């Protein structure tokens, strides 16, 4: 897979994730957790559907790590300090990439609905893993706890996962023509793949 086009697309999508999501979110961000579609996750799914297995895993992990660095800042409970927690989204995205990777062989990759469905599924898996890790962190209780309400986060993220279907539909029209630009090295016409 060509790195440069992937980096450019990732950069653009992160910008959309940060700037566009509050405008289209339900509720009143940042008072409430955002209930808005993800833009970066469909790209992870797009890579996971087309690239070689190790590339998929590394790309998922890297994009997740960037997500943690960019939007993984939490306020410490009762204090006036912030902390950037690296790991929850990285591992969540890795899990999402892995699930898409393992299911792609039985999916009709060229069907637009596959991409949309897998985007929603991947977003839900990434959310579950990320919230789970954060909840574990709170339970283990090393150092000061962060301000984190698991149920609130989980419900908001699962709604966002459903809404990701909308962003995936739009992004599909962008990604499809760009497939050749990314130079995926994984042959598509394998056994079981349609």
């Amino acid at each position, binding site marked *: 897979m060509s790195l440069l086009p992937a980096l450019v697309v990732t*950069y653009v999508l992160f910008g959309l994730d940060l*700037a566009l999501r509050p405008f289209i979110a339900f509720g009143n961000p940042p008072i409430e957790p955002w209930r808005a579609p993800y833009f970066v996750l469909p790209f992870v799914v797009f890579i996971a559907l087309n690239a070689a297995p190790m590339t998929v895993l590394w790309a998922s992990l890297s994009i997740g790590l960037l997500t943690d660095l960019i939007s*993984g800042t939490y306020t410490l409970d009762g204090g006036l300090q912030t902390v950037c927690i*690296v790991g929850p989204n990285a591992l969540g995205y890795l899990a999402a990439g892995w699930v898409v990777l393992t299911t792609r062989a039985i999916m009709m990759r060229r069907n637009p609905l596959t991409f949309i469905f897998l985007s929603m599924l991947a977003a839900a898996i990434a959310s579950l893993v990320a919230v789970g*890790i954060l909840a574990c962190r709170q339970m283990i209780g090393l*150092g000061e706890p*962060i301000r984190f309400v698991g149920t609130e986060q989980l419900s908001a993220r699962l709604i966002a996962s459903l809404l990701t279907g909308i962003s995936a539909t739009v992004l599909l029209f962008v990604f499809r023509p760009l497939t050749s630009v990314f130079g995926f090295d994984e042959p598509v016409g394998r056994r079981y793949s349609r």
Partner: protein
Amino acid sequence: MIRQPHSSRPGGGLSPRRVLTLAVGGLLILSVLPAWMLAPIGGLSRVAGFALEPEQAAINWLLRGLRTASGGERESEELRKAHEEAELFKGKYYTELTDNARLRERISQIEGTLALTPGLNIEAKTASVIGLSDGNSRLVSIKAGRDVGVTAVTSVATVRGTQLLGRVVDVDALSCRVLLIDDQSTPAFDALLMAPISATGEQAASGTAPSAPFDALEEGIACNLKPIGNGLLAGNVKIIRPSERVAGGGGTGGGTGGSGRAPKAAAPQPKEQMVVRLRDDRWPALAQMLVVGVVERIEYRDLGHVYVIVRPAYGDLRALGEVVLRLPAATTNSRTGASGGGGGS
């Protein structure tokens, strides 16, 4: 997962799969480490945020433009300016009143009181909003950092210079993050309830409300507010009656009838739409008497406790293009000194 025939290389080197496994293990450990051990990652986070700032700011600017063009903000420019000016004067007026009261009470501490006067060199900087942080943290990123003298905790951000937005909790060279006053991480703080002042300078006629703004400060309708989520603040009202003030020098009243003493007719009562202003010594002097919000609801509870629910009046944050930062003068001086020496970081 797809198996590969050789998970490690014959020479004992690390295969990509093994590195990935190690990375996963490392991230799992990182995600549960205490905050102080994760401090260096904050630098990486700022670099990533800095790289995305231009794109984020451009998209934000575009979206705000579209919002305005589509009729989201139809308030006329003149009216808006007049409103801002009026709010500014109100703030100054109340600040003067507070200082007056303080000086009369604590004449021996003139120097300390002077630190709270508006005559001091408080620097106000207008800065654009980069964007809202992720929904987890409820922070607003502002495009002003140590370069203009912003300091954590001692600087505050306001909307139009009068409405308190929150306190700066994180600063880097070119940007800072503001924790909103209604975020649940914000500790409880004291505030004063004040009746809105009419154009003639009198407080709005409202039954038992004080007849003049000065009385509001003298008698005091204080409250201790705590964020309760959903963008609201709430807390118990503490009415300081004139008699108590004379006798005890600011004792706390038990409410509106639960203490057994007959309430005086002139005792101030909280009303809906009263303006709430910050009055808490734990906050920097430059934040005192800034508008926190407006009383949205009043609840009368057992034992005569009066409970107010306040909504900050900064409006929709998504439409917020710029904020006014209030910076301490000491910071400005030290920054000037540092830059003069050529060693400012």
